[in-house]
């Protein structure tokens, strides 16, 4: 075989911190060959990002890299900035995770793309502009010419990541390093971006390093895989080898922890109790035509004008005792707003919420607070949802102390310790503070706080989304076990359709504040009717290379439209749309296509 593009030998990355030296990457050696895609997979703290930042001299000032990194036989480490800049950005380019913060906010897209080209290839302005437009077309950027004059904040997340990719490919690199390129994006947008990268690889023959925590993304893209853990490569090999016959325990554990949209029931994990075994038919919660609008300022000359943002726009559903309703949808679809309005954490605009036969609309102040005894919530960010100045014991005890003031201090302490043990925390940690714990442990604290008063309904708002896969699966198991023990109902909100399949009896798909499909989990995953549901499900990557490659990539043509545009909700029913952003539009009705399977009206495909 010819000489590899990049040869890494005995590579180390070290960081000096106040207390000690952190060894982020330990003695790594591997090659990257022409036009191959190497997947690097690992959880947070595995050093997978620092590896390439170190190789390209992009570490923060307290970090340093040792060993050898050769680009086509040329040593890159310890090169002067000027010499390094001949390769960096021209032959080897990078794409970063968060496209909003990774683009310079005060420069237009065009200026940022062209400066890379003109620095490395000294082409005249008009030529540079032409090349940029071509490459923007290649990443399927609509209205490319206009986009060149726009600023990053004027584009959507998916568009920004396209710009990043265009910027990284415009100089014709040999090697493209993509560091979690789709992690900050919605699943349908992720599918589009991956599709674009696949095409680039095919057309331009660029080698790609794909760094990701998501085994599904890696499965569909990579030829070779390296699994990293705590700075070391624990396993490497062809994608097939690693996925189908993993040798290292950690790889096995990772693959086992990945939720799979194609397999709701997995051996060795907690299982959702079927509704029939719970036997509860009692309806606990009825939500009727719930609406939550937020006024948004839209400018005006002397007096500012407002326009309603329809975060939740007429949603109805019911929930039985012991049942779990999964709510899925992309960012901005109103799923969190819906749950908070049900819990009376924010005011609804219209509609009714009936809890155990009682309309909650008229409740105020103390009555609402008494209601907290019945429902609780678990938040997305475990650290942000705990008061940093309170011990975890105080945090867990808070609902109990507030709602049951009659309990003695000792009783509260006993309850807290019992609950801590139940959720897998050492009771001896009761006087510790949140910043001393990991994300997974803090999320256990959050769950303990929600469970301590044994509520009848728990809302999990993206409760596992911020966690690493292995932790995520432990927390999901914990939640399922708690449900079989205490029998509470749940509303489980997530953007991750795979997890929802594992935990929810019924699934509701939201699109811009409205239900597009609602059915039990098997119907919705095996027989999706609405084009949006289909696109969502198709977009979820599966950690199975053969299945991923065989998949026909159905992607939505565009990003989510602005929710302020009244036409947006009729994206799938264009035949009834009035072409005026402010007009009152037709509302798609929900149609029951099979027992309990509701689908919103849509144009036939």
């Amino acid at each position, binding site marked *: 075989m010819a000489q590899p593009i990049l040869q890494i030998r005995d590579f180390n990355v070290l960081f000096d911190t106040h207390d000690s030296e952190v060894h982020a990457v330990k003695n790594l050696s591997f090659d990257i060959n022409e036009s191959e895609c190497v997947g690097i997979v690992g959880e947070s703290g595995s050093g997978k990002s620092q590896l390439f930042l170190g190789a390209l001299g992009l570490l923060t*000032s307290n970090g340093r890299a040792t060993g050898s990194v050769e680009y086509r036989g040329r040593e890159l480490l310890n090169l002067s900035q000027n010499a390094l800049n001949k390769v*960096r950005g021209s032959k080897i380019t990078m794409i970063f995770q*968060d496209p909003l913060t990774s683009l310079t906010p005060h420069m237009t897209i065009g200026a940022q793309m062209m400066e890379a080209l003109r620095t490395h290839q000294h082409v005249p302005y008009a030529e540079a502009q032409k090349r940029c437009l071509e490459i923007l077309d290649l990443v399927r950027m609509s209205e490319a010419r206009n986009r060149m004059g726009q600023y990053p904040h004027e584009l959507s997340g998916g568009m920004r990541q396209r710009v990043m990719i265009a910027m990284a490919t415009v100089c014709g690199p040999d090697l493209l390093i993509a560091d979690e390129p789709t992690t900050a994006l919605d699943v349908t947008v992720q599918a589009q971006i991956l599709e674009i990268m696949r095409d680039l690889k095919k057309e331009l023959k660029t080698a790609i390093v794909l760094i990701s925590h998501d085994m599904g993304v890696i499965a569909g893209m990579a030829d070779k895989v390296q699994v990293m853990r705590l700075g070391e490569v624990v396993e490497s090999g062809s994608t097939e080898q690693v996925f189908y016959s993993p040798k290292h325990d950690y790889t096995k554990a990772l693959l086992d922890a990945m939720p799979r949209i194609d397999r709701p029931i997995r051996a060795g994990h907690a299982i959702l109790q079927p509704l029939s075994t719970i036997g509860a038919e009692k309806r606990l919660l009825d939500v009727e035509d719930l609406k939550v609008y937020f006024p948004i300022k839209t400018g005006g000359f002397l007096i500012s004008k407002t326009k309603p943002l329809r975060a939740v726009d007429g949603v109805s559903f019911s929930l039985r005792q012991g049942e779990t309703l999964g709510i899925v949808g992309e960012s901005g679809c109103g799923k969190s707003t819906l749950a908070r309005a049900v819990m009376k954490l924010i005011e609804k605009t219209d509609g009714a919420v009936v809890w155990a036969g009682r309309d909650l609309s008229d409740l105020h102040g103390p009555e609402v607070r008494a209601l907290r005894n019945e429902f609780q919530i678990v938040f997305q960010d475990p650290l942000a949802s705990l008061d940093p100045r309170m011990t975890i014991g105080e945090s867990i005890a808070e609902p109990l102390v507030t709602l049951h003031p009659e309990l003695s201090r000792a009783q509260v302490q006993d309850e807290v310790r019992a609950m801590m043990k139940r959720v897998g925390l050492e009771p001896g940690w009761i006087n510790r503070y949140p910043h001393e714990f990991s994300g997974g442990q803090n999320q256990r604290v959050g769950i303990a706080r929600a469970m301590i008063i044994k509520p009848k309904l728990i809302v999990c708002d993206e409760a596992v989304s911020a966690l690493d896969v292995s932790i995520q699966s432990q927390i999901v198991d914990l939640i399922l076990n708690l449900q079989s023990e205490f029998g509470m109902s749940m509303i489980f909100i997530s953007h991750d359709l795979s997890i929802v399949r594992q935990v929810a009896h019924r699934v509701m798909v939201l699109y811009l504040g409205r239900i597009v499909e609602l059915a039990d989990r098997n119907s919705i995953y095996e027989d999706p009717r609405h084009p949006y549901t289909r696109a969502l499900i198709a977009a979820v990557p599966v950690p199975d290379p053969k299945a991923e490659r065989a998949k026909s990539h159905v992607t939505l043509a565009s990003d989510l439209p602005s929710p302020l545009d009244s036409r947006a909700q009729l994206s799938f029913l264009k035949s009834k749309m009035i072409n005026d952003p402010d007009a009152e539009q037709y509302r798609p009705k929900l149609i029951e296509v099979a027992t309990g399977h509701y689908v919103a009206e849509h144009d036939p495909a």
Partner: protein
Amino acid sequence: MWPYAIRRVLGAIPTLLIIIALTFFMMHIAPGGPFDAQRHLPPEIEHNVRAAYNLDKPVWEQFWIYLERLAHGDLGPSYKNHDFTVTQLIAVGLPVSARLGLSAIILAIVLGITLGTVAALNQNRATDYGVMGLAMIGITIPTFVTAPVLALIFGIYGLHFFGYDFFLPAGGWNSGALANMILPVTVLALPQIAIISRLVRGSMVEVLRSNYVRTARAKGLPNHIVIFRHALRAALLPVVSYLGPAIAGLLTGSLIVETIFGIPGIGRYFVEGAINRDYTLVMGVVICYAAFVIVLNLLADILYALLDPRVRFA
């Protein structure tokens, strides 16, 4: 942008009115008047003088008369400097104060940004510590200490360098000669240089750590382009927001500097006017300063929006 500017100017009118009213009533409610010192005036003459200046009328009426005159651009006569109107006094003093203040703020911005950037680029190295130490001194030592001390060193003792004596005038204006400007401008600019360099250093350190600077470096851009095109503009935003307070700080400083160095600017008029109960002069100076602050704040806000495309004029 224009609707925004118009709205802001309209919004400033009530503020200006409040300032005028507050100053006016505070001055008039106080015991004593502008002619108290001249005890030798016979009662009837004093009465006539008071009538001539409308001081015998109720305060409300006086206020109304003042506003009416103001609407016609008339700031009234000075009570103490009998031969001049307030407008004339300000017309003489304002150019002096403005020249002093603008020189100081320009010096402060240029030096502050340079020093702050240099410190940030050498973060946690000797240069950084040196610049930040100096900035700490600039912030802590007040104008009324630096002014006399510098005057003592340069004006009275003189400095002996390489066989040359450096003497600077320790006071006086001499119609704005460079030698007379150096000390007052330095004294006025020092604290602002210190504050601006600390601001720039802080925001620059943060920006240099940002993802988009990392992207710029990953694109293989030369260092000076990364710093000047990508980092500096964002790092300057806090400086622009600080300009409003900075101008206010300069005004306070100029009261001291004009008094110590004997510079005939409007700051000195104010202090003298306040002590002498020269109502109209004090009012005139306050209105003048307030208008300045309002306009400069508006300019700073517009500059901010021009630097940061994410800010819309709302």
